[in-house]
């Protein structure tokens, strides 16, 4: 078997303007075959616009998209045959059954009739929907709808998957199942580009692209990205939480303080110096400090701090609604 060495997705200078607003600015990146690339960014950063340009749903103002070696502008049909695109609101027919929805998409994508039954069966099994083939779309739970949407998007056996926040509003159990399916597809050779607002999902991708105000401000292995934080992270477990937050966030030694789960993460220049200092300050104001330790930065710490640096650098000017 020969492995095609060219990347599955190559994006160059991709730009999209809506009136006066530059939604996506001069984006360039490549996703090698077999990778899972996460597109991470605040709301309004341009994630959805980027995905829509990659699948050809909207035309770029400038720049090129090459998928599986095919230039999207030159041969959109050939690109469509190679990709699965799952938008945030995938249109399933509520009045059709699971099986009928799959049949409909098979027809739409021109899957040969003799191949349909076998593919549908495999996708249903894969997504754990085999026992629900006769259930109407309207009667599926949120997690099941997402799995059916994915199955429909895969009926033509695409090699590149473009998924726009596929797990938004899905409960933790269904989310785990959904990712199990993505992993299996990935192991079978699918390249996946997925936008997400879940940090744990981004953390397990091979590359994380951080999009901010239409620009790709970082794209690298999440492990490498986590080492880029300017400063060190101290984790506090302290009560009462409201008072602890006020004191930690109000300390000049602390660059940013965030509540993560039931603990506080404070980014400081020097953890060894800050821990005794902040612990004393908290205790003096009646806060019980259960634990204060230096920890490795999480992806969320890095995300929050990179965005805070960008915002501070621009003083919020010209950001408009896309803050």
């Amino acid at each position: 078997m020969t492995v095609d060495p060219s990347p599955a997705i190559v994006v160059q200078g991709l730009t999209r303007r809506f009136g006066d607003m530059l939604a996506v600015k001069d984006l360039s990146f490549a996703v090698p075959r077999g990778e899972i690339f996460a597109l991470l960014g605040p709301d309004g950063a341009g994630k959805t616009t980027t995905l829509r340009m990659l699948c050809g749903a909207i035309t770029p103002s400038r720049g090129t998209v090459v998928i599986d070696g095919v230039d999207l502008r030159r041969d959109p049909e050939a690109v469509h045959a190679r990709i699965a695109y799952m938008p945030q609101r995938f249109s399933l027919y509520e009045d059709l059954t699971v099986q009928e929805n799959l049949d409909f998409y098979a027809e739409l994508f021109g899957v040969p009739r003799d191949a349909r039954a076998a593919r549908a069966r495999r996708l249903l099994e894969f997504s754990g929907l085999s026992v629900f083939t006769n259930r109407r779309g309207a009667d599926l739970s949120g997690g099941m709808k997402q799995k059916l949407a994915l199955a429909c998007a895969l009926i033509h056996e695409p090699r590149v998957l473009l998924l726009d926040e596929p797990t938004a509003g899905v409960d933790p159990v269904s989310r785990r199942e959904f990712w199990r399916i993505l992993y299996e597809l990935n192991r079978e050779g699918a390249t996946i580009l997925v936008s997400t607002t879940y940090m744990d999902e981004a953390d397990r991708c091979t590359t994380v692209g951080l999009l901010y105000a239409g620009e790709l401000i970082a794209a690298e292995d999440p492990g490498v990205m986590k080492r880029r934080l300017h400063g060190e992270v101290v984790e506090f477990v302290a009560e009462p939480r409201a008072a602890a937050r006020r004191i930690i966030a109000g300390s000049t030694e602390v660059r940013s303080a965030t509540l993560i789960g039931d603990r506080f993460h404070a980014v400081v220049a020097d953890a060894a110096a800050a821990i005794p200092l902040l612990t004393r300050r908290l205790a003096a104001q009646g806060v019980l400090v259960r634990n204060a330790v230096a920890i490795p930065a999480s992806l969320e710490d890095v995300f929050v701090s990179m965005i805070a640096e960008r915002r501070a650098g621009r003083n919020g000017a010209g950001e408009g609604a896309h803050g």
Partner: protein
Amino acid sequence: MGEDAAVRALDLTRAFGAFLAVDHLNFEIPAGTVWGFLGPNGAGKSTTIRMLCGILSPTEGRAEVLGYDVARDHERIKARIGYMSQRFSLNDDLTVAENLAFYAGVYGLSGVEARDRAGEWIARAGLRGRERLLAGALSGGWKQRLALGCAVLHRPRMVFLDEPTSGVDPVSRREFWELIGTFAEDGVTVMVTTHYMDEAEHCDTLAFIFSGRIIAMGAPAEIKRREMLGELLEIVTPRYAEALEVLAALPEVREAALFGRAIHVTVANSQVALPTLREALAGRGVTVDRIAPVPPSLEDVFVSLVERRGGSAGPFPSPGDRP
């Protein structure tokens, strides 16, 4: 009802035909606390909230909100509560200030009151400078905060939030939760549903609902202590997809799932299982950077609670949970 309970449910039940969407719920929400309602899609969360808001009547049992019966006094309840869901209705073609003015009119506030309160919310929610932007042009996080403002302009004593942060990025989600925290400080009671387990940690009390029944209730720390059956091992390996497959196939392993970049495995006894796990991974040539017992996260507990009951993505969604 006691002075200190904002909500009290007594055998609260809602049937749709033969299907029990909400099945004899009993709970109390102390005034001024944040009460989190968790469960798979279709477990009955939205149906419960709709009954408490007086939009849907119970078919059995009863509930009181702020001392009023939901079946008899729903008009009084509606005037005293705030409600916001992921599908909140902002007028996209009105500005931020106009949306607030519109809702002030709906609640019958006088001109002066309306102006004061809108101004107050704009400052509190960090919307200053964005008053003249169209709601439709706001990104998800800003929209959410505006919608919350519209929902609480009449200063309700009780606020219901149904997946308010679905699909919102981590920075905006954190800002939103800081606003929720300020409600509790003012003595306002909050009932909130979410699929983000890190958010659930911020609640004073959590209730897990499954197939219409509450299956666990308590403070987050208490639930983690009590409801996690078995022990948790965390495994860090560069070849996590392969490791996951190996581990999931072992009879000692009850549940294996990716957690960020690590694998979390539930076993009956971690000391007993450890050598078997090591051996199985080594047998497939999977190198392990770290394998150690860890305290469970709320997400681990959620998955454990649901899977113990044989549920994946609740196969029977309640009609009330449909969009």
